[in-house]
């Protein structure tokens, strides 16, 4: 899994330095702040609304619902899409900036669901219109199941390699985290020694993904 950890044994030191790779850093920032678009056509939208509110708060996972597709990076397609609504959905998806992710929520969006057999107007599955990352079955999926889908999406995003393998190992990003402002710059410089820098590189092997 994607690991960006604080050095546990040196928590008492005033200067903490984390070593990571740019890949993990960017993946971590993406999974920790997936902002979904408030998009809902049908019944699943009410479960999406329950997810936003008090009991199944999804703000604690970093999801802040956004009204505009320009500010969103996740679309939880909640509800049946008909042929009349399809262009509107595709336009919403195209307006979202990269990187963007799609969770197909509910049976209606995966295959057409209970409206998929005999109905004249339903689109049988969102993957005819937009590329889908995670399929979440259910009619309705409970809010806990939606959270599970978001977890799976986070796992999927954390596997994303922006820079391919051999280069990935060698690029390190050193994050300097300064917890207090009372230390001046020069004092800080003197305190950075090799012993304070914790390397996590060995734990970032790709075989840990399995």
């Amino acid at each position: 899994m994607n690991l960006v950890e604080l050095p546990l044994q040196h928590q008492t030191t005033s200067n903490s330095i984390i070593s990571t790779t740019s890949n993990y850093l960017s993946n971590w920032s993406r999974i920790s702040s997936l902002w979904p678009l408030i998009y809902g056509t049908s019944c699943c939208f009410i479960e999406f609304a329950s997810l936003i509110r008090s009991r199944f708060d999804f703000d604690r996972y970093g999801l802040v619902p956004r009204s505009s597709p320009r500010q969103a990076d996740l679309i939880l397609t909640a509800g049946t899409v008909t042929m009349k609504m399809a262009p509107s959905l595709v336009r919403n998806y195209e307006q979202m900036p990269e990187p963007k992710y799609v969770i197909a929520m509910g049976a209606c969006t995966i295959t057409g669901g209970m409206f998929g057999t005999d109905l004249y107007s339903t689109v049988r599955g969102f993957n005819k219109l937009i590329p889908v990352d995670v399929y979440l079955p259910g009619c309705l999926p409970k809010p806990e199941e939606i959270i599970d889908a978001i977890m799976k999406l986070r796992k999927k995003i954390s596997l994303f390699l922006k820079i391919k393998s051999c280069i990935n190992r060698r690029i390190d990003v050193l994050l300097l985290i300064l917890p207090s402002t009372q230390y001046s710059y020069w004092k800080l410089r003197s305190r950075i020694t090799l012993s304070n820098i914790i390397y996590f590189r060995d734990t970032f092997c790709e075989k840990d993904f399995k």
Partner: protein
Amino acid sequence: MTTRNGQIKNFTLNSGPQHPAAHGVSRSVLEMNGEVVERAEPHIGLLQGTEKLIEYKTYLQALPYSDHPIYVSTMAQEHAHSSAVETLLNCEVPLRAQYIRVLFREITRISNHSLASTTHAMDVGASTPFLWAFEEREKLLEFYERVPGARMHASFIRPGGVAQDLPLGLCRDISSSTQQFASRIDELEEMSTGNRIWKLRLVDIGTVTAQQAKDWGFSGVMLRVKWWAYPSQPGVCWDSRRAAPYDVHDQSDPDVPVGTRGDRYDRYCIRIEEMRQSVRIIVQCPNQMPSGMIKADDRQLCPPSRGSSVYSTSIHHFEPYTEGFSVPAPSTYTAVEAPKGEFGVFLVSNGSNRPYRRKIRAPGSAHSQGLDSMSKHHMPADVVTIIGTQDIVSGEVDR
């Protein structure tokens, strides 16, 4: 305003299908003169077509399809569908089943009003009532889940009775939950009813006269308000539970709140008051509920329960699910007082096991017609909140 060759035209703005306050998908095209809305035209048809689909299903298979159009108050629609089928079949529903139906319909009413008035509040700008009311709603959805197994689309009220009996301890939990629910309603009211900003946003906006309401076919909360110019004329006190009592509503006798002014503030107050009346009924129901059967005795209509010996020894338990039951020929219109208004089902049968036509009279489709007249000369922000006060859900407009 746009000018072309000296001609001034209104500016057309699309309040599109993807909108955080669109209550599903509802598209309105607003013609505006500056900031003032001259005309608001709802464009519908963006959601599934349930009515045609039901013609291909048997009556029992059609029951879950009645949940989906109005997805916030699901058991009310099931009740309408089941009552229509029972009327055609001339079937008697046992008393215990009637009490269970009333109990769950009133739970549905509270659940719907808490969603409707607080999403309306969120459209107006107050986001806290939404948080509080949804916690209450979660408690009610827990009761939903305990009985039929699903949080929202229950498929619980079936032709002939209800699907399963109440589990042990449910009535006790419901009464302990309703004891604290009235104080939750008080908290919601404290946030909004006397609030100066709330009143400024809601009073005298979206007014409807009693005559207009009757002409447009409004029902439910929309009808029980009146116009300020005729203070002596009360709002139309039409409640299907009083006018044509069904099940055991004549024994529980709710008070029907009626408004005085016809604007959005009145509708909000009526919804709050209806929640209180529903709590009253919910408190009475478990006490009055007799023990007994929960399904009609007709084996054609209701399959035997899973635990009974009849189930394992007969072949009849396959038939209601595969072939369904045949319903005699004429048609019927059955209406119930759904939380949003009068929800009616016009069922036409041709004697076979599938409905020939099932027309849904949804309250929201009548209310959405009034959007234009209600939002004239108001701001676009008010259009959004008028959609909220009409308690429209796009599934019922499009069916």
